[in-house]
């Protein structure tokens, strides 16, 4: 446990002239005294009372009350629809995401994406206020589209909605048509629109709605007599830009002609050349239009894109495939099927990589075997991680998915049931991170896998955290690495295994006490 290490005992006196910021300044006696003095005005509970209640929150009694919640959500692991809409829209060439409704929402989406990627994220709003609540948002939309088009010269405006526009019932299709007919924007400018109320689904739902709208708009009347020999690939709400690049590398090795729907890898990882480029979406509108003529479409996130998949399977009458190229077996299955579908052999280079990834797993297997794990995140993300953990001999125990659904839960339960390492697992659908806190206290595990918000659980329960997911605000550059394919498996494994080893060091770092196990070689 990390709390056995008391690093606060010997804070060295500051060197003269050293600038102290919040990390050390407030630990000085004068500030500690200030805090103590301030407390008298706070109406604070006694320290004993706080300690007593803190202890109670760790109990089974608290857990039962916590799980009896019906109305309250605390620390949910899900965002709302437009975030996913903006995310997917930004992968298309010259595309400006546009959020129709009140303006605060888009400030939040831009902030959130920017904090995760440390990249600019450009999107606009129709800035609706109270008068629009009464009269509707048509005027705002007309002006908004005209201004955005004139200033930012997009090739496409991808329009989604906020709650406000949804509750007042704005007619998006009608509004866009009016804006075009009145000459605010050119008739030929594609403006796909999607209803994305935050009170339905989550960010993955918004991803699906926006992608479907974009594909429908751009492929209208583009169906040709023959296929174009290409395959479409969709990664879903996958925060790792490294995955798109890894997939493209794999497809390149195979020699497969492809279209990524949508390729936002440069949107969220653009080179610094001293020149700011507003649009970095890599999927061209032309190839998107032609995606209707592909041989087939591969989806890597079953539960993110059901509507888009339905569009492609039914309206486009195209073959669709669901694969999960994560971990060893997931990647094996994908590559074998890709080979079978395209008639191209699995490249030697990938076969070598498989060997190296498996080698990495066997090298470290002793340190992960039987480790009890808690994890949370979006359905497909959690599924992929679970599958990978099971094949390394780790034991998933608590699996929390706030934006869950029944089909997902059935599929992951089957996966767990069929593995000897999945027998301890419980899938907690529609639960949040405050539920998970109770789970971690009452049934402790060795490791927690989640996004940055997991750090609060780490602090409270001392369960070491591996940051995998979205958002990751407090570690840098994670998104640049692939988690997909064999290379991705090595990255995932590296993060997991070295967190375990770091934690062992933290536990054994007290001189003359725990450091008998502070080993040089592990």
């Amino acid at each position: 446990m990390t709390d056995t290490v008391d690093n606060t005992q010997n804070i060295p006196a500051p060197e003269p002239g050293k600038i102290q910021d919040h990390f050390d300044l407030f630990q000085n006696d004068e500030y500690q005294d200030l805090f103590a003095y301030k407390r008298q005005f706070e109406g604070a509970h006694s320290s004993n009372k706080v300690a007593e209640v803190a202890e109670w929150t760790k109990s089974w009694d608290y857990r039962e009350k916590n799980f009896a919640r019906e109305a309250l959500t605390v620390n949910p692991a899900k965002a709302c629809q437009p975030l996913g809409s903006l995310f997917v829209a930004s992968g298309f060439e010259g595309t400006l995401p546009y959020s129709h409704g009140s303006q605060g929402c888009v400030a939040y989406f831009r902030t959130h994406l920017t904090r995760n990627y440390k990249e600019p994220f450009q999107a606009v709003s129709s800035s609706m206020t109270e008068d629009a609540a009464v009269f509707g948002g048509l005027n705002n939309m007309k002006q908004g589209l005209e201004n955005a088009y004139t200033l930012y010269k997009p090739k496409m405006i991808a329009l989604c909605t906020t709650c406000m526009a949804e509750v007042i019932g704005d007619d998006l299709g009608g509004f866009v048509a009016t804006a075009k007919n009145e000459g605010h924007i050119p008739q030929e400018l594609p403006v796909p629109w999607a209803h994305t109320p935050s009170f339905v689904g989550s960010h993955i739902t918004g991803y699906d709605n926006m992608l479907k709208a974009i594909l429908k708009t751009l492929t209208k009347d583009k169906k040709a007599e023959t296929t174009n020999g290409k395959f479409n690939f969709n990664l879903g709400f996958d925060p790792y830009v490294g995955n798109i690049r890894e997939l493209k590398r794999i497809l390149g090795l195979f020699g497969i002609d492809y279209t990524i729907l949508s390729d936002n890898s440069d949107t969220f990882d653009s080179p610094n050349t001293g020149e700011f480029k507003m649009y970095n979406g890599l999927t061209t509108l032309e190839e998107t239009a032609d995606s209707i003529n592909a041989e087939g479409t591969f989806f890597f996130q079953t539960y993110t894109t059901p509507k888009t998949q339905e569009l492609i399977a039914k309206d486009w009458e195209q073959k669709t495939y669901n694969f999960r190229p994560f971990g060893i077996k997931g990647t094996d299955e994908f590559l074998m099927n890709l080979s079978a579908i395209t008639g191209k052999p699995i490249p030697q280079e990938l076969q070598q990589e498989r060997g190296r990834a498996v080698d990495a797993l066997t090298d470290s297997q002793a340190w992960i075997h039987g480790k009890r794990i808690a994890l949370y995140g979006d359905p497909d993300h959690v599924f992929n991680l679970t599958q990978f953990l099971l094949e390394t001999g780790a034991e998933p125990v608590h699996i929390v998915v706030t934006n869950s659904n029944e089909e997902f839960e059935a599929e992951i339960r089957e996966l767990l049931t069929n593995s000897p390492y999945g027998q301890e697992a419980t899938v907690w659908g529609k639960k949040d991170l405050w539920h998970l806190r109770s789970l971690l206290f009452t049934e402790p595990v060795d490791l927690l896998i989640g996004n940055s918000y997991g750090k609060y659980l780490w602090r409270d329960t001392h369960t070491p955290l591996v940051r995998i997911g979205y958002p990751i605000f407090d570690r840098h550059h994670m998104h640049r690495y692939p988690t997909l394919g064999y290379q991705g498996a090595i990255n995932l494994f590296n993060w997991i295994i070295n967190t375990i080893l770091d934690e062992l060091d933290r536990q054994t770092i007290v001189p003359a006490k725990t450091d008998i196990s502070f080993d040089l070689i592990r």
Partner: protein
Amino acid sequence: MTTVEDRKALVQEVLDAYPEKAQKRRSKHLNVAEEGASDCGVKSNKKSVPGVMTTRGCAYAGAKGVVWGPVKDMIHISHGPVGCGYYSWSGRRNYYIGTTGVDTFGTMQFTSDFQERDIVFGGDKKLAKLIDELEILFPLSKGTTIESECPVGLIGDDIEAVARTKNKEYGKPVVPVRCEGFRGVSQSLGHHIANDTVRDWVLPKADEYRELPDGFEPSPYDVNIIGDYNIGGDAWPSRKLLEDMGLRVIAQFSGDGTFNEVVMTPLAKLNLIHCYRSMNYICRFMEEKYGIGWLEYNFFGPTQIAKSLRKIAAQFDETIQAGAEQVIAENQARMDEIIAKYRPRLEGKTVMMMVGGLRPRHVIPAFEDLGMKVIGTGYEFGHGDDYKRTADYVKEGTVIYDDVSGYEFEEFAKQLNPDLIAAGIKEKYVFQKMALPFRQMHSWDYSGPYHGYEGFEVFARDMDLAINNPTWGLINAPWNE
């Protein structure tokens, strides 16, 4: 051409890119500061122009994110769909001392996570039940605020009725805050709405709610710190300065503040206000109702700190005045040392700023203490009184931009080519891609504190590391040079 004419031409050039109607609207928000003017010559606090990429947020952000959110021992419910609470969760670094989840709740997200049925049938019952559940799971909370999101106001829920009922039932404050995001033109109305809820729902019962410290006796030196949100711990060096000069701070509202501190505020002799924009309303009310005066101060950089300490001290007796002089004198040497170290590295460097609240003016002298020049500044959500106050801070020729759009900001930066841009997270990487050093002026770029003498040391260090870091020199590939 003079600088003023030159820059006015630049403003016009930037405006030319807009469609006619938008140009007309935006032209009133852009100007160039002129010597001796009583304001900055811009309109403000108007609706943002649709589609131009404003940086503004909403009333909810102002009420929950800014004013109420930092009150650490209350639970602030993001009432409505999940997004608003999710995006604003732990986003502002309002530091506080407490056991999170037990007696304090600052870095948690509480939401009613509205679903379609709540929109159709209304959310009041869910809200009532939610508050019951809060009572069971978080018994040490000192009360609840309900920050309503857009749908709540549109479907006609009566959150006030729920608040009254639950207030009676539990004997703890339940404050309904009607801060739906479509209200007003920016965060600013949310500040005002939140201030009004303190006036209407809290202060009338302050005597009933208040828990006085043991042996509390009123003192002529009792003051409140109002509108310091303790970002990166800012309020603490501020508090220390005031205590060191002999004053007694009986409440911080709201950074690291508690509900009890909110109800302590009427006992003070003077409200010391850091962020005028977001908290002037409650100060004016307290002046009218309780006769408590208020005073704005600026604790950025040694020049303004000394000025502010003397201004504050002038409201009190000689003991306090002597105390202020002593504090200033005690810190002189270390300030001289910091300036001697950093000024040569920063002398003459130019800055463009764009922030909220008070910083577009208050930080200017701190830059000047380091020899730097602010050549452009503007507010996300300022009002006329902010721009009036700004006129005292800016030099002739400073470009003034109110509610600047992404396009305008980029164009101004391209033309003026400052050495540093100081704005928010949404702007940061746009400019860093342009090879322009940048510091976030909302979050201090995860550093801080920047207030007080200790804060100025951190500020000086950070401006230096932003501008003089060697990575900027790597951007141009040698084969392109």
